[in-house]
């Protein structure tokens, strides 16, 4: 968990509002686990001030990829960076997804919505390397919002796509698609990342079916390394409920740990 102030952008792809960057960082590449993230310094001026958290989307020997959607000023400025530009990043941060070896030979589901797909590619590859049979559920508003579908296909993952408007795949939310499919098979674990509403629904029917599930939570992060206490979520651990820093203890938590609250956006 330290700093790379000289991470070079070595590749850049884009689809509409979505961007994929490869960043040269042998150190992070060698340490990273699926579900961990990095904090990127967007500008060296007083505005925008804070770093932005982005999941590690995949890794190579000497580089990591990030995949992000332009959601505001920070990601907009980031999207304008070019191959060759240098980024100042912290990482790998957080604890990431669990499981792995224990899932050998088992069916598992990785369900992501929109930009939430980002950490699931890294996860899916890792799970498969441990022998798990990974089914990807990938949802978006429209065909444009599932730009990684080809990538998953090329890697021969079992891919289930949905779009809200039916422009590609199942018409409707990915949660509905998943629910339908879960009548046909029962995975040993569900991993998910995406809008909170989506994850909440998945948590509900995973609980009903007694399927262990893990979720990658989002929050505005002041630091990403546990010192500002800004990123807390309601978490139950060892029977005790409290505000827990997701940058340190998460961002991934299991169904049982997360206390889904109404106030959350």
């Amino acid at each position, binding site marked *: 968990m330290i700093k790379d102030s000289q991470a070079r952008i070595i590749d850049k792809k884009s689809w509409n509002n979505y961007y994929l960057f490869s960043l040269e960082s042998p150190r992070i590449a060698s340490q990273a686990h699926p579900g961990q993230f990095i904090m990127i310094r967007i500008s060296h001026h007083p505005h925008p*001030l804070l770093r932005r958290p982005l999941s590690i989307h995949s890794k190579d020997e000497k580089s990591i990829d990030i995949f992000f959607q332009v959601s505001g000023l920070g990601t907009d400025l980031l999207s304008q960076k070019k191959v060759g530009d240098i980024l*100042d990043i912290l990482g790998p941060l957080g604890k990431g997804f669990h499981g792995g070896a224990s899932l050998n030979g088992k069916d598992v589901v990785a369900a992501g919505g929109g930009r939430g797909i980002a950490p699931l590619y890294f996860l899916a590859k890792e799970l498969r390397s441990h022998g798990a049979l990974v089914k990807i559920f990938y949802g978006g508003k429209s065909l444009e919002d599932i730009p990684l579908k080809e990538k998953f296909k090329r890697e021969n993952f079992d891919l289930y796509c949905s779009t809200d408007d039916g422009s590609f795949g199942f018409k409707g939310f990915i949660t509905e698609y998943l629910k339908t499919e879960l009548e046909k098979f029962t995975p040993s674990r569900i991993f998910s990342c995406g809008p909170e509403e989506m994850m909440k629904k998945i948590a509900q029917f995973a609980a009903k079916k007694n399927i262990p599930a893990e979720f990658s939570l989002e929050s505005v992060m002041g630091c990403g390394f*546990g010192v500002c206490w800004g990123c807390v979520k309601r978490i139950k651990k060892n029977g005790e409920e409290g505000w827990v820093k997701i940058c340190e203890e998460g961002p991934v938590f299991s169904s049982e740990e997360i206390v889904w609250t109404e106030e959350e956006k």
Partner: protein
Amino acid sequence: MTDLSIDLGFIKLKNPIIASSGTFGYGLEFAPFIDLNKLGGIVVKGLYFSPRPGNSPPRLVEASSGLINAVGLQGVGVKKFSEEILPQLRKYSTAIIVNVCGEKDEEYASVVDFLDKEEGISAYELNISCPNVEKNGVCPALDPETTFSVVSLVKKSSSRPVIVKLSPNVTDIAEIALSAQEAGADALSLVNTFLAIAVDVETRKPVLPKVFGGLSGPAIKPLVLRMVYQVVSRVKIPVIGIGGILSAKDALEYLIIGARAVEVGTANLIDPEATVKIIDGLTEYCQKNGIDKIESIIGTLKKPQGLD
């Protein structure tokens, strides 16, 4: 060799750069990034007597060149701090300052009472200025009398120097400063965050669940420089400047105006190496300008004299 050391009277610092409370955790979190021994001092996260749950999220919202926070002083309490954190912190050769909080005057005193028994603390920083979002931002530092009352109570029980951290949300900060001095404060730190609000125009809700938060970061620097200027000419005790310091240049503005040290806050979140870079920048500035001792630039602002 440039001498960056600073004498605050009750304590000598290696250099005028102190990490500010709430933005540096309990200090140890920064050990992977920087050599903590290089710092002038560390103010640990605000401590109440008992552990505190803090506010519900979202706790942060970015503003223009600033950050609004409503963390609500979530923390471990004095007991856990003394048992688990202080023993590790003590090993570093930098001034450890504890940011002391309280719901009532008595709680401040009891935190100090408790900690007085522990080794390895250089001073207390009395946080009488945290905009308490429950009470619409009210805090003792808004009023000279409430300031006097809590400072004098704490001074009675404290065996250590007491730095009083003031609030910017006042008409006349020098008046509060004088009141703290009269009550026995050994130094003043200016300032805590500015009471602020952000609105989400889509949901029409305040972004922070309890409406208010505290603004920090570069946005506030020109206002805090003004407050330090207003205070240094009125008090005899040393003043520590806090607000929007990202670079050595920012720190130098404070020192030239008359702050004897500065605290670096939000910058730590953005760049965990910020404090050390600022210290290096001070050395560079001194070398470039032929300054042997940084003490010699404190309060050297060339004030205009009777311009038209």
